[in-house]
């Protein structure tokens, strides 16, 4: 099953990935090829088979809502590309 260029553009927008023209073309071909290989899964009868999300017998792992020490602000901001007065400086979300 072949991916169209529009589909690749659409998916790239969904995951916010800026792609060059060359990448769009190359990925379109490589990914179509890869996706062709996934058709084999349609051969498998999975009616009445539950999906597996995690291969361990754990569910809803929670803890008591107790306050504990967290990281100091300086640690958290140490890798910030832009910061101001103890905040991460971000681009305007709304124009």
């Amino acid at each position, binding site marked *: 099953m072949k991916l169209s260029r529009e589909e690749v553009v659409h998916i790239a927008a969904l*995951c*916010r*990935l800026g792609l060059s023209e060359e990448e769009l073309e190359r990925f379109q071909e490589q990914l179509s090829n890869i996706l062709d290989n996934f058709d084999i899964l349609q051969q498998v009868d999975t009616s009445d088979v539950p999906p597996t999300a995690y291969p361990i017998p754990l569910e809803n792992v929670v803890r008591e809502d107790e306050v504990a020490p967290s990281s100091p602000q300086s640690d958290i901001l140490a890798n910030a590309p832009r910061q101001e007065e103890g905040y991460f400086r971000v681009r305007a979300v709304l124009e």
Partner: protein
Amino acid sequence: MNRYDLTIHQAHQLLKKREVSALELTKAVLEHIAQVEKKVHAFVTVTQDEALRQAAQADERIKSDDLTPLTGVPALIKDNMCTRGIATTCSSRMLKNFVPPYDATVVVKLRDAGMVMVGKGNMDEFAMGSSNEHSAFFITANPWDLARVPGGSSGGPAVAVATGEAIYALGSDTGGSIRQPAGFCNIAGLKPTYGRVSRFGLVAFASSLDQIGPMTRDVADSALVMNVIAGYDPKDSTSVNYPVPDYTKSLIPDLKGLKLGVPKEYFVEGMQDGVRQAMRTAIAKLEELGATVDWEVSLPHTKYALAAYYIIAPSEAMANLARYDGVKYGFSYEGKNMWDAMEKTRGYGFGPEVKRRIILGTYALSAGYYDAYYLKAQKVRTLIRREFEEAFERYDALITPTSPTVPFKIGERVDDPLQMYLSDVCTLPINIAGIPGLSVPAGFCDGLPVGMQILGKPFSEEVLFRIGYAYEQATGWGERRPQLEKGGKETGDLERG
């Protein structure tokens, strides 16, 4: 023997008896790194000052008899595990300058045991790859033949252990990334049962598949490292609260009473004859050691594992990599506005393989395709798990090759993603099922290492260790070292074992 060629247990004996100091051992390793790195490029960062300081601290502990088997022993940590104050790059432009404010749980555990960390290991970017060619920084070369790949994504750690640039290493494995490079470099590599070792501080690739594990010169060393890193961690909600046994008690040199199965689907079409032959010889040796072997086991769903993996892993990856947006850390492109900044940050920060997988995953999860791809793959995953469960009711362990071929040449598969994905066809099903897998050296083909993979049911690492240990003691394959001075070609053959 050169000090950097010691195993953990050998080094521990010498350190305990004060025949060598941690400082001397560490200096020997650091000098060796300086010699050898220009040929293999296994390290992203060499932490020389740190290592010398830790070695001095280890020597203090040794003086007061407060040492563990890992105290004072130099180790390499794959560069996707957070180390406080030391760059953790995942071999990606995206995290080139990222310095974590915390240590991964496994790093904390090793530090408490007295580890000397000599550096961070080169890898395929964000652990996505099978050859270390997808590192954004440089390619790591296989010391057995410098024109060939060491495997991936834990290529740096595998090479460091093979050459003596570290006595042991920690790698991570999502689809084979510990076992395949271990097999390609003639060392032992264990992917523990999913949930056995904490993932806290491991940069996430695929959350239901990732595991950290030891990469070592022999099985006894693997057991020593597992004794330290395994165990419940409240910071990892997927870590399982089962007690950790003393894994060194499982090092029994015979296999009497063990029932082993050989699933024929792992002897794929396209497998190299020399690898097939090495495997037959190896499995015959297991019979000699006392195991009963059924050569005709069949796991018919094996052929669906590649497709299931390459839907599930990229889908989980696209979610895990959504955080790299240039806002709180990592590479950040200025851009014209918020969305442009994010798109360009991700476009420039990620390499091609990472981008390919993000797109694949996004597609598999998108409206209209979710049922046919992601949900279907998850159901096939249940069938693959059940098939292993049933097999382990009849057999104590299953034996397969680690890879269908010996290490391939650098550049041979990097432009053909599907060919590259096929390198992991023997290792992927193990992550899908969440079971443990150990790769041990099993001989050579054309002078290049062949690995044998040992599989068991969940939390059966002790059985894997017993089989690996017995085999290794009887054959000695893992004792061979690559001859780097001669350009790295090992001219061994199958005569031993």
